[in-house]
């Protein structure tokens, strides 16, 4: 190109010093650079926009936090291949889940919490963290009893499907201690004489496996596994729980409290809040059980 310069100068010295060859080279280069960068920009913008994980798509156990996971996952599908129940899938293009990344859907195929966590074993990059060795430490999501209007336990019936299926429990030969879901006994105000046994999730134990969501007997599950970010609030840390502090320090932090009696509940053991117009009679409990209060009058 330098050889062309003198000829160029003699032809039109005042006009231009760019030879046609160089012009072609430069414009070709600019076209390639412009086109290449434009395509890369399109790819970048698309990949960023399509990075949101829908709430109902759950990552395999041990998955790094979502932003890191998207940097680390090569989308190779080894976890999918190594999943014994075959619940893991790789998202196909056009799916709302980040293309090619592994996920499962609790309602249709929950994680069965294999003890040896085979899905993590062959992950080449550590997108599924090999530091997770106890499946009970997995946090794929958090189960939330999200609809109290349809959950039949809240309607006063006994169901317990989610409670019974929950695998986060300590099992011995003749006993089982559920940890992630407990049944909390509450007074049923509608019948006024029955208990409601309400499934209650404990976040410190729930792995987010989704077995409860799958087990829910309703058409649409009343209990769902959500990303912890959607499911959990977070306090500022300046709320101290008096009962915890008292336990910790062996005394109340604000000194002894004056306990005033509650009218009508004098001489009742703590927790017995039944109020009677008259002292309870000694009639056969089977007699009154289930009959309407109005019948007595």
């Amino acid at each position, binding site marked *: 190109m330098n050889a062309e310069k003198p000829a160029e100068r003699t032809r039109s010295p005042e006009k231009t010093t760019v030879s046609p060859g160089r012009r072609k080279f430069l414009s070709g280069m600019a076209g390639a650079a412009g*086109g290449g960068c434009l395509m*890369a920009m399109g*790819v970048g913008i698309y990949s960023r926009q399509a990075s949101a994980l829908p709430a109902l798509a759950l990552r395999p156990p041990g998955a790094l936090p979502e932003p890191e996971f998207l940097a680390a996952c090569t989308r190779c599908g*080894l976890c999918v291949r190594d999943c014994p129940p075959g619940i893991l899938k790789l998202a196909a*293009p056009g799916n709302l889940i980040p*293309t090619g990344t592994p996920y499962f859907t609790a309602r249709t195929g929950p994680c069965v919490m294999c003890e040896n966590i085979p899905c993590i074993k062959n992950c*080449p*990059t*550590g997108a599924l963290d090999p530091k997770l060795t106890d499946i009970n430490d997995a946090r794929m999501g958090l189960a939330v009893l999200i609809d109290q209007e349809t959950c039949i336990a809240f309607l006063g019936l006994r169901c317990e499907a989610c409670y019974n299926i929950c695998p986060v429990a300590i099992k011995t030969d003749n006993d089982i201690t559920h940890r992630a879901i407990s049944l909390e006994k509450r007074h049923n105000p509608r019948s006024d004489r029955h208990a409601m046994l309400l499934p209650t999730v404990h976040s410190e134990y729930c792995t987010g496996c989704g077995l409860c969501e799958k087990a829910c007997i309703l058409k649409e599950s009343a209990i769902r596994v959500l990303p912890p970010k959607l499911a959990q609030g977070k306090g500022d840390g300046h709320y101290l729980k008096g009962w915890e502090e008292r336990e910790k320090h062996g005394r109340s932090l604000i000194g002894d409290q004056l306990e005033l009696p509650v009218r009508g509940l004098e001489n009742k053991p703590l927790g017995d809040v039944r109020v009677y117009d008259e002292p309870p009679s000694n009639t056969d409990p089977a007699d009154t059980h289930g009959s309407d209060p109005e019948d007595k009058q």
Partner: protein
Amino acid sequence: MSTRDPNKRLGQDAIANKGWLVANKWLLLRRVSQLGILALFMVGSWFGVWIIKGNLTSSLVLGVVPLTDPYAFLQMLATGFLPAKTAIIGALIVALFYLLIGGRVFCSWVCPVNMITDAAAWTRRRFNIKSNHAPSANTRYWFMVGTFVASALTGTLAMEWVNPVSIAHRGLFFGMGAGLWFLAALFIYDSFVATRGWCGHLCPMGAFYSLLGKAALLRVAAPRRDACDDCMDCFGICPEPQVIRPALKKAGQDSPVILDSRCTTCGRCIDVCGKQVFRLTHRFDQRSSS
């Protein structure tokens, strides 16, 4: 000697001289390689015998040897994430292999998209489609650099969202979804818009592998270049026609070896040449009839 007869099909002389089988030898071998690699992944899901598990981005051979696509690996590094040892070893193995054998050997012997774009090239020849709005062939290198920048800025393996190679291969084994439309669009683009538009001009993965194979040992050469009768069949069939001239016509080089790293070592020039000018050899083979 002869100028090209427009009604003559590419490789007709070669078929007449060598027979159909020899005149398609390298094409057939490539298809066996491409389909064979797909089959190795497939037998696992069909029969539960895992020879190779995963997909082209990352896989595990016989449960022991990890393989990772170095292009995806570099995107990962660009995000700032340092992957576990397995992926590093896997990327090194694959990079070393293509470094020695020839980067773009991946393109013509392994990549599943090659079959799509070859089909598009065939369609162009068969229906004599001449329209060509191909962008600059250097676009791919800029695009490649751009994908690393995009990965760094977005914190994800940016190209892996849309990489047709990954979409095709992953799709075959894990569900294609809308990827099918994407690949169809690629076929239409290559057939009707731009000759060898994707593989020869845009694909950043091909660009990466071409740079990787700058000093590769396995090369095509034109040792019998004085027998060339200028029939142009090799230029007509070659996916990167510009790479042939320096070796065949001594344009800027004396060596008969095609040294341009954009050559995919597909061997089609060897196939279609009726004069048996070309052969597959190594980089330092200087034997030449002229």
